[in-house]
C-alpha cells in the first residue's frame, strides 16, 4: 500500500480508529500487527510468507543464541539466520543478476550457455526488513542486547507498517522498549505527526513526481545523442532533487504515521544537500542505513583501527556493498564505489591537511557544500542510468561546453527545475545546523497554517497518487 494513495487514507483512518478505541495494549499491538500484514499483503499477498519466514527464523535463532554458550553452536545459529535472510535477499534480488553475469563470463570463456532467464518478482521492501531482522540477531549474537521476550512485540518490530517497506531501518533496541508501555499520541504529537505526513506527501507527490520526474526522465532517456550541457546538468540536478524528495518524503510520512500512533521512529535525512564533505553527507543521507553499514560491516571489518590503507579499503568495501544493496546492477556498484572513492580521498585530505583554516569560514563551508552537492549529483548519474552507455553519454554531455548536443528541455521545465532545486538547496542550507522542529517552533502560528494549507492545496491540485516510491525497488 502506498502512502500516496486513497486506499492508505481509508486504511489509516480505520487503524487509528481501532488503535484509539481499544483499551488493552496487547490487543492494540495485535491490531497493529494484523494491519501491518494487510498493508504488506495489499501489494502481493503471497509475499507475506517471506515476512513470516524471516520473523520466525530470527525469533528462534535469537532465542537459541541467548541460551547457547558454545561458540561453535552460536556461530552455527548466526550462520542459519544469515543464510536465511541473505539467501532470501540473494534469490529474489540478485538471482537474475548473478545468472546474467555467469552467462557473460561463460561467453567470455568461449562457452555457449543459454539458460532460460527466470522472471523473479522482487518482494517490496525485502532489503529493508531483512537488514532490520539481521540487526536484531547480530545484536543478540554479539550480546549487545538481550532477546525480546514477547513474540508479539518482536513480530510487530519486524512488520510495523509505517517503516516496513522503505525504512527508516529501526534497531530492535530502539523499537522494542516502545512496546512495553501503552502508546497513545498526545494531542500535539498527533498534530505534529499529521504535519509530517503532509510534508512527506508534498515532497513525494508535488515535488518529486509533479515537478521533477519528467525532466529527469527526459534527460536520462536520451540514449542515442549527446545532450546540450545545460539540459544535462538540469536533468542531473532534477534527479538529485527528485530522489531526495521521493525517499525523504517516504521517511517523513513513516515518521508522521508512527507518531500519530504514539511511536517514535528515527530521522533518516537531515538536510543532506547542505553537507560539507562526503563523510558529512552520509551522516545526513539515509542515516539509518549508513549507521547499519557502519555498525555491522565497517566496524567489524576493522573500521579506522588498522591504519590508513586498511581504513581506505574498509570504506571502499563498505560502500561497494552499500551500492549493491541498492540494486542488482553494476551501475549501482559503480555508484557505491564512487562514494567509497570520494570518502577515501576525503579521509586522505583530512590527514594531509588537518588544520586548513579557510574551510572553517562561512564562504569556505558554503563552497565545500556546493562541491559536495556536485560530487553527489555526478554519482547519481550512475545510480539513475539504466546502463553504462547512457551514463557515459550523459557524463560526456555534462562536460561538453562547446554547445553540442540536443536541447531537450522546454523553457518551462528549465524554470521549474531551477526554482525547485534552488529552493531545496536554500532550505537545506538554512536547516543544515538546525532541526526542522526548531525552525517550525520559531515560526509564528499563522505562518505554519499558511505553509500547511499550501501543501494540502498542492496535493489536491496535483492529484498525484499511485506512483511508487523509487526506493521500493531496493
Amino acid at each position: 500500500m502506498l502512502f500516496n494513495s486513497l486506499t492508505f487514507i481509508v486504511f489509516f483512518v480505520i487503524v487509528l480508529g481501532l488503535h484509539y478505541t481499544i483499551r488493552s495494549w496487547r490487543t492494540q499491538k495485535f491490531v497493529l500487527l494484523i494491519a501491518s500484514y494487510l498493508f504488506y499483503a495489499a501489494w502481493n499477498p503471497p509475499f507475506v510468507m517471506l515476512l513470516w519466514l524471516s520473523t520466525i527464523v530470527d525469533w528462534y535463532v535469537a532465542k537459541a543464541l541467548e541460551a547457547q554458550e558454545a561458540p561453535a553452536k552460536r556461530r552455527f545459529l548466526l550462520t542459519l539466520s544469515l543464510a536465511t535472510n541473505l539467501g532470501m535477499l540473494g534469490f529474489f534480488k540478485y538471482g537474475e543478476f548473478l545468472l546474467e553475469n555467469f552467462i557473460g563470463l561463460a561467453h567470455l570463456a568461449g562457452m555457449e550457455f543459454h539458460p532460460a532467464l527466470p522472471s523473479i518478482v522482487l518482494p517490496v521492501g525485502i532489503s529493508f526488513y531483512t537488514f532490520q531482522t539481521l540487526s536484531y540477531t547480530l545484536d543478540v549474537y554479539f550480546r549487545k542486547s538481550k532477546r525480546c521476550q514477547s513474540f508479539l512485540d518482536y513480530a510487530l518490530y519486524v512488520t510495523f507498517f509505517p517503516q516496513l517497506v522503505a525504512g527508516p531501518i529501526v534497531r530492535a533496541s530502539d523499537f522494542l522498549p516502545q512496546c512495553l508501555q501503552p502508546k497513545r499520541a498526545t494531542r500535539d504529537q498527533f498534530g505534529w505527526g499529521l504535519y509530517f505526513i503532509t510534508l512527506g506527501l508534498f515532497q513525494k507527490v508535488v515535488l518529486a513526481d509533479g515537478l521533477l520526474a519528467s525532466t529527469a526522465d527526459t534527460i536520462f532517456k536520451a540514449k542515442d545523442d549527446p545532450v546540450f550541457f545545460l539540459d544535462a546538468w538540469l536533468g542531473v540536478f532534477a534527479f538529485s532533487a527528485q530522489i531526495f524528495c521521493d525517499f525523504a518524503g517516504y521517511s517523513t510520512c513513516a515518521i508522521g504515521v508512527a507518531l500519530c500512533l504514539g511511536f517514535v521512529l528515527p530521522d533518516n535525512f537531515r538536510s543532506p544537500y547542505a553537507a560539507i564533505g562526503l563523510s558529512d553527507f552520509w551522516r545526513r543521507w539515509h542515516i539509518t542505513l549508513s549507521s547499519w553499514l557502519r555498525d555491522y560491516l565497517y566496524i567489524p571489518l576493522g573500521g579506522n583501527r588498522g591504519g590508513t590503507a586498511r581504513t581506505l579499503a574498509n570504506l571502499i568495501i563498505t560502500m561497494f556493498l552499500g551500492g549493491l544493496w541498492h540494486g542488482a546492477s553494476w551501475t549501482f556498484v559503480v555508484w557505491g564505489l564512487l562514494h567509497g572513492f570520494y570518502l577515501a580521498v576525503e579521509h586522505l585530505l583530512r590527514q594531509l591537511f588537518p588544520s586548513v583554516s579557510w574551510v572553517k569560514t562561512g564562504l569556505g563551508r558554503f563552497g565545500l557544500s556546493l562541491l559536495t552537492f556536485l560530487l553527489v549529483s555526478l554519482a547519481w548519474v550512475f545510480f539513475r542510468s539504466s546502463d553504462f552507455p547512457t551514463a557515459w553519454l550523459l557524463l560526456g554531455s555534462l562536460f561538453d561546453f562547446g554547445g553540442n548536443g540536443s536541447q531537450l528541455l522546454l523553457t518551462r521545465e528549465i524554470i521549474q527545475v531551477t526554482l525547485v532545486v534552488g529552493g531545496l538547496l536554500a532550505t537545506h542550507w538554512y536547516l543544515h545546523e538546525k532541526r526542522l522542529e526548531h525552525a517550525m517552533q520559531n515560526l509564528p502560528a499563522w505562518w505554519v497554517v499558511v505553509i500547511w494549507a499550501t501543501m494540502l492545496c498542492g496535493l489536491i491540485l496535483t492529484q498525484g497518487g499511485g506512483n511508487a516510491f523509487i526506493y521500493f525497488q531496493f
Partner: protein
Amino acid sequence: MPSSTSSFETYELKRIIPKHHWMLLALFSVVITAVMTLGWELYCRSLGYEPSINDSTDLWASRRIVLDAEPDRTVLIGSSRMLFDFDMDVYEQEMGERPVQLATVGTNPLAYLEDLADHPKFSGTVIVGVVPKLFMAPGGPLVAASKKHLDRYRDWSPTQKAGHYIARILERRLAFLNKEDLTLNQLLLRWNPPNREQVKVPPTLPPHFHTVDEERQGGMTDFAEKTMALQKRIQQIWLPLFSPPPPNKGQSPEEQKAEHQKADKRIFDRTKKAVDKIRTRGGKVVFLRLPSTGELRALENKYTPRTQIWDRLLTITAAPGIHFEDYPQLTDFDCPEWSHLNKKDSTEFTRRLIPLFKKIRSKGRM
C-alpha cells in the same frame, strides 16, 4: 559512510514537538484548504467541467478483468477513433450483446490483440479499430501506451483495485478531479514561454476534448464539438503526427523505406499469428476502419494508402473488415477535427454499421 567511527553518533531516537497548538493549526489548515478546494471546484464548474470519470489505466484494467469472467464477450480494441466513434448502446440494442470497450487514446492496439490471443479461454469477437499510422507503429509512445495499460491489468494489486473504486466515488462528485485537464502538471503545460529554437515541443491535446463513462464509452465533449477554435488547434496537432518522421541520422530515404517495410512485415506477421490463435479457440476478429476527413484523410491516404495497409491486412489475416470508404452510407459524416465523430454522429454511424456486422455474422465470421 563516515570514515571516523569515533566522531559518528548513532541516530538519535528523540522527537521534539515544536511548541504550537498542533491540532488547532491542523484544523485551521484543513478549513482553509476546504475553502480553497470549494472555490477551485466552483471555478472549474464555471469553466464548463462536470464530474467525470478519469480514463485511467485502472479503469481500463477494471474492464479488462471482465473478460476473465466472461471470455466469450465481444471486445472493442483500437485507438481513440474506436473509443469515440462506437456507440455501445446501439450495438447492444441491435446485436443483443454489450461489448467491452478496451480501445485507448493514442495507442497501437496490436498488443491488446495479442493479449486476447494469449488468453487461455477467450472465444469472443474482437472488433479492431484500425488507424493505419497507429496500427503500423513499430515502437515508441504508441506501443508504450498499450503496454502501460496491460501492465496495470497484469500487476493490478489489491490496493490499486481498492484505490480505483474509492477514486470513482470521488470522481462522480467532484469536477476538479479531472486528470486530463486539471492537475497541476496539466495546468503547467498550458504555460508555454518561448522555447529555444532547437527544442522540439511535444504536441499536447487541448483541454475539454473527450470524456468516458464507467464502462469506457468515450466521446467528444459538447464543448469540443461546438468550439471551432479548439477544433482548429486539434487539427494542427494531427498534421505532424500523421506525417512520416524524418529519416534517422545518417540514413538514406531508401534505407528508411526498407526499414519501414521490414517493420510492416513484422507487424503483419504478429497480427496474423494473433488472429489465427483467437480463431483456434472459436473466437472471431473483424477489422474496422473508422472515418477521418479533411486534410488528415488526404494525409492518411498519401502516407498509409489502403493498398499497402488495409488491403494487405485483410488478405494476410483472411479476416473480414469494414472500411468506411467502401460504403456510401458511412462516408457522409464530418469529423469536427478531422479524426473523430461527435457523439450524435457516432450513434448514427454505429447504427449504420449494424447491418454490415449482421451480414458478417450471418456468414459465421463474427
